[in-house]
């Protein structure tokens, strides 16, 4: 049998990307179930606050979606070997993500303290905090991963040859943003 190097035309998809997209499929299925529960119970709470107490999180959404743009720029910069530009855009992504999380925390504090809405208050409370919380959890995990890369960059360990791997992390971050679009539409647009 001839060797693989004699077959330069044999090109298969990158396994990192296939793996990451498979992960997206799994995560999407999980989010779909939470969304189904949210929609199923919409309007069915017997008592307590309803979705009308929610304010449209415009600023937070702009931050999060912008962070997709900054991470895209970061990865493109790293591909070109511009580590400095990469680092700046990467940190900007983290900052925007942190703002999103911080804003979510503030919104929740308001809901708990001023509106009396907790996860155990009623069906709306349970489904709202679960769905938005699940997304926030994924943002948090993403931020930890991004921060780890930032630390490695600060130590001078991240170079041009790592662009493909960093890009995978970028894909994850884009996915988290796409999920936010879905959650935003379901909770703040359709469900209210």
């Amino acid at each position, binding site marked *: *049998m*001839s*060797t*693989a190097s*004699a*077959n330069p035309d*044999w090109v*298969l*998809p*990158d*396994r*990192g990307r*296939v*793996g990451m997209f*498979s*992960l997206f*499929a*799994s*995560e*999407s*299925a*999980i*989010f*779909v*179930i*939470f969304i189904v*529960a949210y929609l*199923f*119970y919409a309007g*069915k*709470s*017997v008592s307590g606050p309803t979705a009308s107490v929610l304010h449209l999180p415009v600023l937070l959404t702009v931050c999060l979606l912008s962070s997709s743009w900054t991470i895209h720029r970061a990865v493109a910069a790293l591909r070109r070997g511009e580590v400095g530009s990469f680092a700046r855009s990467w940190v900007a992504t983290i900052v925007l993500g942190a703002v999103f999380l911080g804003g979510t925390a503030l919104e929740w504090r308001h809901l708990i303290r001023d509106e009396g809405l*907790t*996860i*155990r208050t*009623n*069906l709306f409370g*349970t*489904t709202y905090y*679960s769905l938005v919380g*699940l997304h926030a959890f994924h943002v948090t995990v993403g931020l930890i991963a991004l921060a780890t890369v930032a630390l490695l960059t600060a130590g001078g360990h991240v170079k041009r040859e790592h662009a493909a791997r960093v890009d995978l992390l970028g894909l994850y971050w884009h996915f988290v943003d796409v999920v936010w679009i879905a959650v935003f539409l379901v909770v703040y647009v359709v469900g209210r």
Partner: protein
Amino acid sequence: MATTDVGWIDAGTRPRPLVDRLQDWVTTVDHKRLGILYVGYGLLFLVIGGIEATILRLQLVRPHNGFVSPQVFNQMFTMHGTTMIFFVAMPLVFGFANYLVPLMIGARDMAFPRLNAFSFWLTAFSGLFLYFSFVGGFGLYGAGTAPDVGWFAYAPLTSKTFSPGHSTDYWTLALLVSGFGSIGTAINIIATIASMRCPGMTLGKMPLLVWLNLVMASLVILAVSPLTAAQIMLLVDRYLGGHFFDTQAGGSAVLWMHFFWVFGHPEVYVLVLPAFAFASEIIPVFSRKAMFGYPVMVAATVAIGFISMSVWAHHMFTVGMTSAGNTFFVLTTMAIAVPTGIKIFNWLATMWGGKIYFKAPMLFCIAFLFQFLIAGLTGVMMSSAPFDWQLGNSYFVVAHFHYVIVGGILFCIFAAFYYWYPKVTGRMYSEALAKLHFWLFVIGFHLTFDSMHVPGLLGMPRRIYTYEPGRGWDTWNFLTTVGVVFQAAGVLAFVFNLVRSYVRGRPAGNDPWDAWTLEWSTTSPPPEYNYATVPVVKSRRPLWDLKHPEDPDWKYE
């Protein structure tokens, strides 16, 4: 290669200290070793699950028996079901996939070896965690709080109100963690098949086993995730005061059922597709003919994968869905019988005109065909919703799904054990012992599971720790229990064969079956790197091409 040394490293080196060799196994990221770990784990829990079944059957051997209390019985059927699905069948399926897929596509390992190891240990840990419930914790029933809510854990029985104590939490957490392991392995399988096939192996030239595992992995991704979500919701209910399934606060018990069965039905296809994979590799070799209708088999597999995501509520025909809702699921469930039947016909057509060798792998596959046919037909009976209103939740259902899982899936797994044993160990198993295993198990299987259908037809519901005399159920329950003895004896013969042959079996060589897929081109057992040079293939049966250069497959494909 040396024939006397069957250690895991190249011949000529002295065996290393035991501690070092154990550490090799614990830290391994090699797909073959992880495959063996998964399979060994599954076999161990098969015996444990079998003991649980034996306890159930001893209690039910006659009416009003007092072998175990109702509390223990309810724990036994919950643990038996949970163990068999998540810690026997899944590990066996993943184990064989792990071992065989890279070999059969000419790759050196899975796409993500470390993720592979991590996934295995997640599963292994969660099984031990589940069993810790027998000895740890507190709860309503005193010592031992093994879950007792049934393997599908319906709400609101699982709420804190009706299940105080931790029995339900053991169920939820063990399956949550093992679910992550399953998803990890599925991601690995998909990435491996997509990205690591050897040159020339287009999707249309992959062995059917690889196709079936690809679809299986996709189903795991789409099906286990909803269960994960539902379990998170259950934990929110139980510990954060949530109301997802809290019927007293307006929550819905039926919602849990939908979420569970969206997982539960594709799950059984996760288990059966690899069984089909084994049959699809073994039947052609032992009939000495190429698989009949390869493209149709692929198409049928993909069709089954898709349709299986749309049939779940046939487990819910009695819960009060609308007549339109019920009718929809009748249609989709009946529809899935079509590609499934097509597969049976194609296997028959493969045997037709061939030269059948009745070695153990083929014996088990022939029994599989017969038994899976029956299992499928009882499934069709229950797909007719009105008929299911009588048959559902009775021993007819229990008989049906054991017919599929034991008579179909386990028989194929036994076949796979015997078929690939020489490749994995380098030794031949004892054909006589294997035939003894086969006949004992066939007799036991039919005694138990043929009989089991009848009480269902006579009104016996499932999950009852005892039953009334005078309903016509007694004799059939007795026969069902008797069959356990033969199955246990068969499994004993099986395990004895595996162990004894490892020590004393004659060396197998690379290709004892004169087979046609890539794994038979390397040594038995394969070296750690699988192939010295990456193979290049031109057809679905690369070794047929090599052995028959005057009449290669690629001329006809």
